């Protein structure tokens, strides 16, 4: 009697075991939703002649390929540029504009601009978050005498606001893009 019980139990178990095999369906592709592949900073001078574009594009994200960095030309000395930053996710088609998300959650984000000491240029914020603190997807860049060096755009997520600069702000770096520029 007991043997029968045991036997039936083991048969049941092996049934359960074999019953749930093979649901052979191919995996579904995942296109990363929040990846930022492209940062474009457009610098429009006051006289609106030579617009300069700084662009970095990294289509494979964390993949092995390095970002492709392009600077459309040299900056003019003693000029004030109106700057606008656009962020895109180009792994999706059509490309998704991530700047909109950053601006929607403006109080959780801030751009910082790091200008190397050899470069005669200064920046000021021209757009602000819902609390009136710096946001920086729009800014002005004022150049001085001819020189060369780097401009780095850093986007931080959840920085301390207000702050005295990127060192003080903390938060998590979403973007860090460096461009080598010449002022002439």
């Amino acid at each position: 009697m007991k043997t029968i019980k045991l036997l039936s139990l083991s048969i049941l178990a092996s049934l359960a075991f074999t019953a749930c095999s093979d649901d052979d369906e191919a995996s579904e592709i995942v296109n990363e939703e929040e990846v930022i592949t492209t940062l474009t900073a457009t610098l429009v001078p006051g006289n609106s002649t030579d617009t300069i574009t700084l662009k970095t594009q990294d289509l494979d994200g964390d993949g092995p390929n390095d970002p492709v960095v392009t600077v459309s030309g040299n900056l003019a000395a003693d000029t004030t540029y109106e700057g606008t930053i656009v962020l895109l996710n180009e792994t999706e088609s059509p490309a998704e504009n991530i700047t909109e998300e950053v601006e929607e959650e403006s109080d959780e984000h801030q751009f910082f601009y790091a200008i190397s000491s050899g470069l005669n240029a200064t920046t000021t914020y021209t757009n602000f978050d819902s609390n009136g603190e710096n946001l920086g997807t729009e800014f002005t860049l004022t150049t001085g005498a001819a020189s060369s060096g780097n401009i780095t755009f850093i986007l931080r997520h959840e920085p301390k606001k207000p702050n005295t600069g990127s060192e003080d702000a903390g938060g998590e770096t979403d973007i860090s893009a460096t461009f080598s520029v010449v002022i002439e």
Partner: protein
Amino acid sequence: MRIYALMVLLFTSITSISQNCNNSLSGKVIDLHDGTALKEAMIIVAGTEQMVVTNSDGTFTIPNLCNQTYAIQISHPFCSTIGFKIKVDGDTSKVFKLEHHLEELNEIIVNGKSQDTKLNSVLEETISKDKVEQFSNASLGDVLNTISGVSSLNTGNTVVKPIINGLHSSRVVLINNGVRMQDQEWGVEHAPNVDVNTAENITLIKGAGALQYSGDAIAGVIITEPSKVFIKDSLYGKTLLSLSSNGQGGTLTSKLTKSYENGWFATIQGTLKRYGDFKAPDYVLSNTGAFERNASLRFGVNRFNYGLEGYYSFFKNEIGILSASHIGGAEDQVRAINSTVPLVINNFTYALNNPKQDITHHLARIKGFKKFDGLGRLDIQYDFQQNHRLEYDIRVGDDADKPALDLVLKTHTLLVDLDSKLSEKITLKSGLSARYQDNFADPSTGVRRLIPDYEKYDLGVYGISTYQLNSSWLIEAGARFDYTYMDVFKFYRTSFWESRNYDVLYPEIVVEEFANQILTNPEYDFNNLSATLGSTYLINDDYKLFFNYSMASRVPNPSELFSEGLHHSASRIELGDLQFTSEVSNKLSLTLQKKSDVFGFSIQPYMNTISNFVTIEPTEVEQTIRGNFQVWEYRQTNAQLLGLDIDASYTFATNLRFNHQFSLVKGYDRTLNEPLISMPPVNTTNELTYQNPKANNLKIALQSEFVFGQNEYPNNNFEVYIPETENWELVDVSTPPDAYHLLNFRSSMDFSISKSSNLTLGFNVTNLLNTSYRDYLNSLRYYADDLGRNFSLNIKFNY
């Protein structure tokens, strides 16, 4: 039965007529089955209200009895109470037999394996029920950490993974209630999904010798076992409450068992743990709380030669991950490492924010056994496990509340084991196992899969035999064969696929090409052999020598094969390799043990040589638009681990005892001739305990825990350019933290409440001096100090 005894008592108690009453009744209470003496049996003489308890040799004496017939009742915790009639004539002596069930039950309930020796030629380390209860509010990893040679790999203080003799994760096999846990154990941030309160005792076997469980336990096997249930009509349980000052929370766990004389029983158990942010000595560790809910049900019937048991457990744990550990690229890493305090410190809260983990584990098991004359004991078990792991990252926009990782791992296992005694001297354990596993990574996370979808089939067969050569030598040998088939669907980034030259090597596994990704279908067959050979030699009554050689083979885990992307909490890009083969370990271990009441010790040196050892190390710094990340690649190499574990205890005076533990392990990459990363530093624990059974079983212990700084480690530091300061800064991810010393205090007292219930009160302090320290094996050591002082109050009620 009880009614019988009562009736006899009633009938006979009337006949008390005074006469010569200077006789005594002496005797012995023994087990009906094998004649062993039963201590602590209670004997009540009806009519005289006399009560005595048997000594450790089962004997007793009742004085002042008259020459007449008495009714006595004998009861014992593990036996049914029985009434006897005895005629006293002068000084009388008699042997009483009780049906003692404990011996049978050891065999019946716990799978035959549990109370038996699991492996003879390796010293088994067992953690007792008392110790498990002390750690009721902690995790399995914390409890195991009390064994010499075991450390823990931590992510903060709530994700604790055991490291055995320097190895962890997929190399550690965890057998929970007879079931091999399949809970995504490959991940260094994936703690075992086991409620420590479901275990009555925990056994650790260092090394891979216990082939009945697996052939790939290169580090060792951890076995948790439930409590025994006695075959008698009874209802009993316990409730434990533990309150902690650090984390401002507590743990409540309760268990109730109903058992019957006919062998049926049921146990229901549940645990609730809730903690807010923990604290380091100087600041709050923001977002480190945890909320754990577990329940289990066990029922079945146990008879002498057959039994059947069902078990179901539910485990759910939500764990916050330190806010300050969530960082962007190498630039953030520099800021975090250089800062003396965490980059994020908020006020204390119970809320669990992102990043966090949310894990649910279901385990169902049914098993039965039957003893056959001449064949042995046959066990059959089927189990099903479902592990659902959600990991939440800090995300923006619509995705803020979406998990970044969503894995469902389902596992079915069938085990058939036969335990036979071939002759007086030879035993043979043999068995078969079959397992089917399905991993599903939900694509709706919007994040590329960390681990691909796969199906895995395992078949195993083993045999282990022991031969008792003579009274001092025992020889043990075993072998196991495992076949594994894996069918994987993996998306690769086209750029990675090409950079690895996979497009040339494996064009045949490509299923479909997309814009910037490629779907592939790798399939694997692994044929793995493992074996063990060992012996024990009884030098004399005190000294025993164990020798064991074990070979184990491990199939590479999915993260080693398929990782390909950013590992956020480590802030590094991790890359696997689909060409990996099985890792093979050859371990030699020796143990000299001295057992004695005054001075006892065990010394365990070992050497583990591993070919195709999978290790992860940095190779380059990758530029991305998010900044720079260090790239860590898995690779296979030849490794060797050498170590020594020492335990010793010395009893100074009746109630005073000194315990000592020492563990040393050195790991080397023999191909590159450099130390292995994340090897536990040398550590020693020394403890003074005082116990006074007369003062409510007062126990006081003062413990010192000293962890040395790790002096051998590979240098993986790198430099990164910081645009704000225009400097190249060193990112020191290698240098281990300094040595540290912690003092812990423990105390408890027992109080009897009624005949069948008692209360234990305990008061403990960990990190008594509130020392600030960081541990080399805690992956959050870059970002924050470890835990500060904690006062805890434990109340245990047995009923």
